[in-house]
């Protein structure tokens, strides 16, 4: 197997921080940890090219470096790219992740790296590439290379990649349904007993913090503000013109309410499978309170009700998709000069 190896200036033996601005250098054969890597990959595997690049240079010239590494991997007719191990070195880990992802995406050639859990490269690239958990102890170099080589060989050989904990890589955050030995009940009681005994246990979903949304500054003067209503409760005009689905919605709609004093039952329906739609269909104001906002307009409490409301279905929506729709909605509202938004849910 032909392998290309990516190293930073330190592990490439060029120098320390003073050499961090080093542009990429190409060396034939192994450099530094490359020899151990070659041994670990086993008979018939050769590091044909080693690329050494300074940490700062890679950080400041990501596109150039990834393009260059991709080109080298292609020219070398390599079957695998290995970057690192990077341990805790943050710039190194970030560069290693970037070159691995680029080679994998552009050439379809497997790429692998290794770093410690604290390395920022992990969060940036764990979902797209295999990153072996190196820990932060550089003296474990030999062992880490052995694990990297073992998984790298599997990637090239199209072998079945086992679970993250068994194979030693950082979870890629992908879910697969599998039939397992123990029922959910047995796993629940086992997990609870472990927890009560103070023993280690592992949750079956990631316990991950969801980004906190900072509170926006208050609207300085509501009596002059244009207010829009946005809902994820799925209110749509009768006939659902944008065909917003009742779950997993990929689309949202904007519906005119200019000159409309109140929303009439029968003219709207609900595209949302997550709640009993009847109360809203009986009176759409329960979800989109046009009536109250018109009154507030008349009373001078708000400046103006924005002439359309935006609607989609929040039901079972993947976060990534929700974020995209949120950005799209915000862009439309900002463009229209809306000052504040009332979000209604179910």
């Amino acid at each position, binding site marked *: 197997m032909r392998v290309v190896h990516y190293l930073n200036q330190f592990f490439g033996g060029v120098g320390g921080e003073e050499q961090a601005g080093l542009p990429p250098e190409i060396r034939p054969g192994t450099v530094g940890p490359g020899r151990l890597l070659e041994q670990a990959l086993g008979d018939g595997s050769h590091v044909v090219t080693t690329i050494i690049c300074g940490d700062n240079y890679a950080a400041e010239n990501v596109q150039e470096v990834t393009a260059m590494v991709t080109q080298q991997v292609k020219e070398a007719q390599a079957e695998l790219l290995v970057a690192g191990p990077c341990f805790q070195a943050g710039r190194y880990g970030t560069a290693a992740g970037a070159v691995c992802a680029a080679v994998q995406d552009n050439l379809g050639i497997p790429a692998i790296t290794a770093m410690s859990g604290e390395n920022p490269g992990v969060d940036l690239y764990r979902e797209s590439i295999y990153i072996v958990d190196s820990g932060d102890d550089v003296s474990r170099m030999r062992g880490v290379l052995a694990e990297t080589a073992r998984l790298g060989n599997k990637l090239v050989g199209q072998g079945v*990649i086992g*679970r*993250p904990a068994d194979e030693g890589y950082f*979870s*890629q*955050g*992908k*879910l*697969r*349904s*599998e*039939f*397992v*030995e*123990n*029922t*959910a*009940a*047995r*796993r*629940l*009681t086992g*997990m*609870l*007993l*472990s*927890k*009560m005994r103070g023993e280690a*246990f592992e*949750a*079956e*979903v*990631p*316990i*991950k*913090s*969801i980004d906190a949304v900072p509170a926006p500054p208050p609207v300085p003067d509501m009596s002059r503000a244009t207010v829009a209503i946005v809902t994820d409760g799925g209110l749509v005009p009768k006939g659902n013109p944008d065909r917003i689905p009742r*779950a*997993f919605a990929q689309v949202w709609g904007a519906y005119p309410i200019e000159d409309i004093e109140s929303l009439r039952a029968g003219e709207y329906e609900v595209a949302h*499978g*997550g*709640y*009993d739609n*009847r109360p809203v269909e009986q009176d759409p104001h329960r979800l989109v309170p046009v009536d109250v906002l018109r009154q507030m307009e008349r009373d001078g409490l708000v400046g103006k009700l924005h002439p359309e409301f935006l609607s989609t279905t929040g*039901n*079972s929506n*993947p*976060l*990534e*998709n929700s974020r995209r729709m949120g950005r799209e909605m915000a862009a439309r509202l900002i463009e229209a000069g809306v000052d504040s938004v009332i979000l209604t849910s179910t």
Partner: protein
Amino acid sequence: MTLTLANHPITEFFAGPKTLLDGSRLQVDLEELRRYLLEDQRLESVALEIVSPGDPCRVGYVFDIVEPRAKETGAGPDFPGILTPIASAGQGTTHVLRGTAVAVVDGGQPGGERGYTSRRGGGAKILEMSGPPSQASSFGNLRHLVVVPHPHPEVARHSVLNALRLASVKASVYLARTAQGKTPGSTQVFDLNGAGEDGRKGLPRVAYIGQVHGHQHGTEVDEHILYGGNTRGMLPVPLHPNEWLDGAVVVSYSWGARGLDTYFHQNHPIILDLYRLHEAKEITFAGVVATTSSGQLDELNRNCMVAAQIVKHTFKADGVIITKYAGGAPHSDMFETARLCEDLGVKTAIMVSDTAPDRRAESAALMNIPGVDAVVNVSEAADISWPAPAVETVIAGNPEVETLLANLTELPGVSVCGVTNNQGASRLQSIMY
């Protein structure tokens, strides 16, 4: 409170001139049973068939699956609040026809997608008796009496559902009464009477909180869930685990495909496992709480608080398992209850069912609450399916569904009964790679 289950393993189940249990051979007079079920005047006709494991047969859409059980004569009520007046379930001897089930088919109502309107919010589920889907299902290895009630067309939908429920428990009890007075193959005794006995000192006390309904989609006025009640406005209620196992709880007109079956209330995997640990003296089983997920915020806060208080102050539990009803919204109640329990010093383990359509863990992590870190994830089988096995018989509630089922080429895991389950029975797990 002591419950004795008298287990009668059934090895043959067939139609015959007289309903009787002969050793492990169960013979049923289908005409007699039909006449009994047709005493419900809402029903125009009832189709009855017996299907066995391996039969090239597909059944749909399934309303519920119930294990045939009947109290020993004079021992207590069968499905109190539904079939009999209110009396305590959970004590005395109950005969169980192990290896069998009653599967009730919902004909649906005309209209909707594909000529059929399913139950609220839920996908329609199929009982598959052969091939890999049957092996992946908790119900593929049972002998089923399939009951297909056909209501008069003018009967309102909620009343139709009520009639289906009644038929399910009537058929269950009818079959199991054959075991009355007979010597069972084995018995199991369930009691917590020794909870205060010597030797339990220092054992952790563990409770269970289970949602028996979700008010996300409302409830019919005549819907039977807990002791026949529809759980509207219900506060969390402490029960003896035996009541739960012995007919006090049946599933609501539920989200079948997401997996809640009366069979697994009768054989509740979590309650049974807590009993196992109780008997092994690894824990003391402190009690169970039946609750619901809420339709409104004040209801959610009230119910979660009360459930947590019962577990802490009434049961004096050190740990609690909390499960939810099917769907996404009930996660809110489960997480909030867990948070309150953790605040009170009661350790929690909960069970989520991720609905992430993109199969990304990020989308599956519904909430992040400090301390609520013991989480079991049952898959909803979004990424599991099988080529539909060839079938010779399709049993369906109406001709449209029969055609549809006969022509299926693929069986999604989510639509096969007994693959996913929110009561702890499933072996299907969402694993993070």
